[in-house]
């Protein structure tokens, strides 16, 4: 090397700390082989059907009903989780009471509990002879084996998302703005409704979107309590499994693509929400 060590920009592969090529190389290798290639398979498979075939595969009444059920119920569950998630986050952040730590830890239960366990527990609980189901039978309300069961299960697994997204934002909010509202004559309810809630909107929406995304794709907690009756109480993931068992790979992949596309849209929406939230701050 000459004393005038000119460095060509292209050869700028030197780094101060060691291990760049090794760590990045391994990371990319892992991701490509385990994630990207299989996902590629998912997106290529339906192409074999051609555009018409693809459209036909996903617009049968059964498929449409399953998609409607998965997306519609997840949406409703996300709303319920947002409302109660806000209440729970409020209680956990603003109130003081014994056992708060325990209550806080319990919120993560749907995260920590394997989905199959939650599935059979919810199913048994809301079945006509279950603890809760039996209480509702006299009123003609059936939860298990109906779309209502799907709603209950999705609400169950979505709750941690709404609570956990709101908690840090709420605690960071500080009391100043509420104090100002009080000095201006607002009641507590008015303050919460007109001042606090609007400021929390991005976080609430983010939590709701995450709960929604989780509900759409969820399988284990739902299939036991749902009736799994085609076109009535059959969720989209179950339909994928059924088609696989019938060796209809292309059909299964078609539904999978739709769900993946929906996930992608959700991811973009979430990122958009978060940058909107960051700008407001």
């Amino acid at each position, binding site marked *: 090397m000459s004393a005038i*060590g000119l460095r060509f920009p292209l050869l700028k592969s030197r780094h101060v700390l060691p291990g760049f090529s090794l760590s990045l190389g391994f990371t990319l290798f892992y991701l490509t082989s385990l994630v990207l290639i299989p996902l590629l398979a998912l997106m290529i498979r339906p192409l074999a059907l051609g555009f018409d075939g693809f459209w036909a595969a996903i617009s049968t009444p059964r498929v449409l009903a399953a998609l409607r059920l998965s997306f519609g119920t997840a949406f409703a569950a996300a709303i319920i989780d947002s409302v109660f998630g806000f209440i729970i986050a409020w209680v956990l952040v603003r109130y003081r009471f014994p056992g708060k730590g325990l209550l806080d830890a319990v919120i993560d239960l749907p995260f920590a509990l394997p989905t199959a366990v939650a599935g059979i527990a919810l199913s048994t609980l809301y079945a006509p002879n279950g603890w809760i189901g039996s209480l509702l039978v006299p009123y003609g309300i059936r939860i298990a084996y109906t779309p209502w069961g799907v709603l209950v299960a999705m609400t169950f697994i979505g709750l941690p998302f709404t609570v956990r997204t709101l908690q840090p934002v709420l605690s960071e909010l500080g009391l100043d703005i509420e104090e100002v509202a009080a000095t201006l004559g607002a009641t507590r309810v008015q303050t919460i409704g007109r001042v606090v809630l609007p400021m929390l909107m991005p976080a609430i929406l983010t939590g709701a979107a995450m709960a929604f995304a989780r509900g759409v794709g969820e399988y284990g907690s739902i299939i036991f309590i749902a009736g799994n009756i085609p076109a009535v109480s059959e969720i989209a993931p179950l339909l994928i499994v059924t088609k696989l068992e019938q060796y209809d790979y292309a059909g299964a992949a078609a539904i999978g693509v739709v769900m993946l596309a929906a996930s992608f849209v959700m991811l973009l929406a979430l990122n958009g929400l978060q940058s909107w939230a960051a700008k407001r701050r």
Partner: protein
Amino acid sequence: MSLTVDSVSKKFGRFPALNGASFVAPQGGFISLLGPSGSGKTTLLRILGGLEFADSGSVRFADLNWLDMPARTRNAGFVFQQYALFKHMTVADNIAFGLRVRPRNKRPSNSDIQHRVKELLDLVQLPGLDKRYPSQLSGGQRQRVAVARALAIEPRMLLLDEPFGALDAKVRKELRADLRRIHDHAGVTTVFVTHDQEEAFAVADLVAVLKDGRIEQYGAPADVRRNPKTAFVSEFLAT
């Protein structure tokens, strides 16, 4: 065995941090890189330490093509502005680190390492603090540990990045006197970066005044003060 820096340049994106900086320092000299923020002094120091790569130019030291060597092998002790002490290690472990990571055949024995650590703690005037953790030390004490750690590897060159930046005036004065004393004792070529001209002039043999990535003037403190070469230099020294 002088240090020859020749036309070193570096760009960050489109911003030219260094634009052809050159100077020559004698073996064992104490050089200060002085200038306002953005002048490129820290960039130059980091290039000397192997923590940045120059886009062009060369550095020769101890008959070596300095810039071709990775930081690990340069044996240039570096003292960071925020000290960068290993917070999970005691003071003694911090200082001993450079000795412990040497390959087996070059590693001193445990008792030698302990002896050296004690020596260095005495040198930086922190006797007895070997079992403390960085979080238990004051800023000035942490700075001394950082210097001791850099000296432990018997460096060819000692590089300090605004070493007294975060400390109050009294501590700064003490520490810079100590730094000079340590330098004279160890005889190691020392380059330190500062924006404080009083500090630079009080302690360095040679001062390089930087502006916009170039060295505007370089010389003994007295010379630079008496004969400022450019308007910038005289204005900078007047403040």
